[in-house]
């Protein structure tokens, strides 16, 4: 029923109906994709075609000298034409996010920004993704120090309520400071330090005799420190590079880790009206505490997790409202142990609408 509504909306977009609300920015993507491992398994893969729909709507509610308020809504829907099991039908993912964000100019050099968001992700007949409900609040204070320098103080609070038994609820606090140098609009560098406090709704584990892990009365609480550096510039292409070192300490045995994360984002005009976007992220995560005497099946290799994701999108605007895009995405995600990480390649073709 829900997917039928989405298709009706998609048909309306294709039909070129006028946006019913003046001043509303709408952008939609409708397409098909071929995924060679939609269920993200490391063993025998099961390929599937699928549909993908994405809608982004935003409207600036207030735009005044003192600041602005913006409302943003995103809806995404994915349907795999095959089920995870031979007898299963379809696997669906529906994600909805509503965000209200604002900016207040407190002083010529001081700005306060905030956002509150509500996200619902509903996954049907797929074990590779999680369903949850998330509420989030973000507060930020930016002080312009002069000559392109600025200091940022941020606080975020969010809460994930897992819709399935497989995942734990998470309560999340994040406090951060950033130093930004922006000599011009086209160049920006930043250094930051953030602390994340994650409380899981599951018992913490403690090492016991005979290589056992036992749950204790406390709930798992992780404290993560993130040191990051980034640079963004525009010179023919918009480039954004980020590196972060993450250091996590947990009261639960086996969860403390250190990780290195690198992200590259690139967007440039190629030729003949074709624009390209590239996203590359890698993360190498090494768990500090080796698990207590594991079965021979599990080796220390499992202490290392690696994520690699490469995505290349080519798009061309056909006219003011319509465009086409093609995307290739490669992912490798999971333990570094041989055969324990899944790999997937996704090829997609889509029509894009801007209203």
């Amino acid at each position: 029923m829900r997917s039928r509504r989405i298709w009706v909306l998609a048909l309306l977009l294709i039909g070129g109906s006028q946006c019913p609300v003046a001043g509303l920015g709408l952008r939609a993507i409708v397409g098909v994709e071929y995924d060679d491992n939609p269920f993200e398994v490391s063993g025998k893969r099961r390929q599937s075609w699928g549909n993908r729909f994405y809608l982004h709507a935003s409207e600036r509610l207030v735009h005044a000298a003192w600041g602005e308020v913006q409302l943003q809504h995103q809806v995404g829907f994915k349907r795999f034409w095959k089920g995870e099991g031979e007898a299963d039908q379809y696997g669906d993912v529906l994600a909805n996010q509503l965000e209200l964000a604002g900016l207040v100019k407190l002083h010529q050099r001081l700005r306060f920004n905030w956002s509150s968001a509500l996200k619902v992700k509903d996954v049907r007949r797929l074990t590779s993704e999680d369903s949850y409900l998330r509420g989030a609040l973000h507060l930020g204070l930016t002080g312009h120090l002069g000559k392109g320098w600025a200091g940022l103080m941020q606080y975020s609070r969010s809460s994930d309520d897992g819709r399935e038994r497989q995942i734990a609820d998470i309560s999340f606090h994040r406090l951060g400071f950033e130093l930004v140098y922006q000599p011009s609009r086209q160049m920006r560098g930043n250094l930051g330090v953030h602390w994340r406090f994650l409380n899981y709704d599951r018992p913490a584990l403690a090492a016991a005799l005979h290589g056992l892990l036992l749950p204790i009365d406390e709930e798992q609480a992780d404290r993560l420190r993130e040191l990051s550096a980034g640079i963004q510039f525009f010179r023919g292409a918009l480039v954004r590079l980020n590196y972060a070192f993450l250091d996590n300490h947990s009261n639960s045995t086996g969860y403390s880790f250190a990780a290195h994360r690198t992200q590259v984002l690139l967007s440039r005009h190629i030729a003949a009206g074709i624009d390209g976007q590239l996203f590359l992220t890698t993360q190498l995560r090494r768990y500090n505490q080796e698990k207590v005497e594991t079965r021979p099946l599990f080796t220390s290799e499992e202490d290392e997790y690696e994520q690699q994701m490469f995505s290349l999108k080519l798009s061309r605007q056909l006219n003011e409202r319509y465009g086409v895009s093609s995307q290739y995405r490669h992912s490798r995600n999971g333990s570094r142990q041989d055969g324990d990480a899944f790999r997937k390649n996704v090829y997609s073709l889509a029509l894009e609408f801007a209203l």
Partner: protein
Amino acid sequence: MYLIFLTVLSLSSGVPVSAAENDIAVLEAEHGAFALYHDSLTVERQHLVWRADSLSVVIDSLKGSDSSSGDLEEALLASLVLVQWLVQVDQRMDSLAVRWEVQREDLRRAYDFDIGRLIQELSHSQRPDRNKLRRLRIYQEARDGLGTRIVPSRMQYAGQMDIGPDDGPDEISQKLELMENIAARLKYETLDAEFCIKQLKVEQRLRQEMTFFTQEISLFDEHLPEGRILDHGRSSEAVLSQEIGPGAAEIAEVGFADAVEVSQESGVAQVDFADAAEMPQDDVLLNREAVRGEHLVPENINEKGIVLEIHKLTTRCRELRELEMVIQERIGVFHVRLQQIVEGQE
């Protein structure tokens, strides 16, 4: 959960909606900034005039009295400085008046455009749209408030672009050459500004595309790395199949287990360390899950600065084109005049 409630509450808190178009909003903001600047200059000027008047009284009294000439010189010097300040403020006010009038004209055009569009939309719609009607009324009031004065400075041209009664063919040719040079320079500047606008529009589009690209990836959680979940060995395949049901056996085979849930259901969370020796000699169970809490959508990709820059350059382009048109028109007049003189001599 209370955070979710707070979020819903803040989302439904009814923010006043000002549905003005972006162009108008930007221009109105500029207009407001000009007004503020004008007010501050007026206050500054009043203050300077007041100080100059006070000083003038002091100077008059010093001239009348027998006090030392040093005081008088100092007062005169201070008066000169004040006059200089006053001249500078007046210059800034003149410059502001010109820019403000140009900006006001842009605002008039933006309102005219949107009023026309709204009227067209309303005439095509079968049912009257209250929002549009309300906006139309607001726009019309705002437009009326701006008046209909034509910018006098735009169509003015300097004295050297006029043909004097004593100008002969040589003078006219010299002026013609000068104007052709000015026209060429204006054309070059226009092309330069147009090129900059084109570049800025590409940059704006790329920034928008990058934002949408990452937002889509982020919405589906496709950027998240995976981490491990550990649990104790009680949740072995056998326990799972007994406690959760037949469906769980399949999950356990591929390495997915609802370990935490099982541990809670089986009451293992209450087990003391002393009981460890009595526990089955099974091992740690591994699972994996996406690590949430990662933030992908890049901040500060915003294009507000670009929008403003594009707007400024577009206005500049329009001004340059208008100036060029005026000069071209003068060049035409000069050519005709020169032709008449040559024909008269023949």
